[in-house]
């Protein structure tokens, strides 16, 4: 990560540098906040970020932000009594932006893994993230996950789902070629174009893609991966904010709001854990 070095700066040198540069640019806002939750309540506004290219979670439909995350965060903010503003950032900028305090919470669905738990604070799960495969609708050679021996599989670089397909193939003794993409949409495009034989992603994402283009794509069932979940991500030291978000999420599950949102976007409902689960991967 490019910005790993920032811990080196002492508070004083930070202050000095910001004062020096503050003179150069008009009216800078100093990005200090002792407690993010208190700051949000004071402003009456929570700033969240995601990449709006991850249907059905995050979609920019002719400039209007839509999807599972939008409906959930709106409901959560209502519980917290604040407004929300949304930032659309490329995925590679989202986590650096969170660390640089450009916004308060990342509402891109992030798979809970052991490695990530060390660096970020996770909310309670917002959706199922179990990894599955999608093939071309007319491909008769893949009917179950075990059929991928000798095939080329595409997925988004650095995702938990891509790591799982490699582990799955190793475990079953299957030889596969893996192609890594900057984002899932390129993997889907190459699947449609016939350059790869299957795309790996979470089941909700694939089910939505296949439903949008049933003539082109079909999901390979059952999902092959370990049960995993998507959560939102905050900074490790923002425990109070995460607690407030979690309380709201658990309440939404209790009062049926979560089930309603799931029905809209996934066509079915799933029970989610009420606490941050121990990661299995």
């Amino acid at each position, binding site marked *: 990560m*490019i*910005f790993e070095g*920032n811990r080196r*700066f002492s508070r004083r040198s*930070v*202050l000095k*540098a*910001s004062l020096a*540069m*503050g003179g150069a*640019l008009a009216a*800078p*806002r*100093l*990005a*200090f906040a002792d407690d993010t939750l208190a700051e949000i309540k004071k402003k009456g506004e929570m700033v969240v*970020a995601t990449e*709006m*290219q*991850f*249907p059905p979670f995050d*979609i*920019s*439909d*002719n*400039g209007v932000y839509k999807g599972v995350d939008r409906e959930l965060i709106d409901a959560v903010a209502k519980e917290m009594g604040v407004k929300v503003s949304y*930032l*659309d*950032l*490329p995925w*590679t*900028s989202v986590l*650096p*932006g969170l*660390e*640089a*305090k*450009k916004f308060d919470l990342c509402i891109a669905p992030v798979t809970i893994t052991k490695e990530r738990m060390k660096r970020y604070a996770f909310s309670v799960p917002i959706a199922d993230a179990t990894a599955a495969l999608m093939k071309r609708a007319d491909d008769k050679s893949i009917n179950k996950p075990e059929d991928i021996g000798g095939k080329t599989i595409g997925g988004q670089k650095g995702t938990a789902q891509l790591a799982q397909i490699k582990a799955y193939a190793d475990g079953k003794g299957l030889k596969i070629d893996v192609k890594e993409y900057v*984002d899932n*949409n*390129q993997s*889907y*495009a190459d699947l*449609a174009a016939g350059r790869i034989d299957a795309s790996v992603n979470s089941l909700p994402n694939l089910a939505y*893609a296949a439903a*949008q*283009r049933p003539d*082109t*794509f079909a999901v390979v069932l059952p999902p092959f991966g370990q049960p995993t979940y998507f959560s939102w991500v905050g900074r490790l030291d923002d425990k109070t904010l995460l607690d407030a978000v979690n309380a709201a999420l658990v309440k939404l599950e209790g009062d049926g709001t979560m089930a309603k949102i799931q029905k809209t976007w996934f066509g079915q409902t799933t029970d989610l854990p009420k606490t941050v689960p121990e990661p299995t991967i």
Partner: protein
Amino acid sequence: MRPQVIFHSFGYLTEAAGVTIAISFAGIALGFLIGAAVCIGRLSGRRWLETLGGVYISVFRGVPLLVQLLFIYYFLATLGLDVPALVAAIGGLGFASGAYQAEILRGALNAIPSGQSEAAVALGYSPLDRWRLILLPQALRLAIPPLINEFILLLKASSLVSVVGIAELTRVSMNIAAMTYRPLEAYVGGGLFYLAINLALAGAGALAERHFGSAR
């Protein structure tokens, strides 16, 4: 290929093209001011100004624009200076373009034979009149083709400002591709908008050349 995707998203693409044009023109204008200042510094005959201008050009021409944008938006924030996305985008484009425009202007001024300046002095022109009537009109004429080149390059490079969260044309094309699962149509749509804008820019350049007379 399903052209309906482009028609359906036409308003969204038009809006994004507006953002691309606004940010690029602000960047070009800022770049021209910086470029003129740096060029004057480089030709001032004062050693420290020449060095300063040279260092500016080396840095902003030598570091990729993407890295400059990430630095302004994210790295300055870790030092406590929260630069708004729009300021970071226009600033990044303007700082980088300023380095290129400075060299374009310097090249154009250097292309005017020194005999002209000497003759003007000999004929008793004041320094102001020498620049206003003799040097600048010719330099500007010489600079038009490379400047239009630079403007078109900058307009296309403005796709990079999406890393600071600005929904410009390329970013919006990607959004459409993600939403519709039809990347080909989305990018053809975005590409056509870029082409239209750049053809208009090139046309404006041709008009400007005709207006100022050809440089021969």
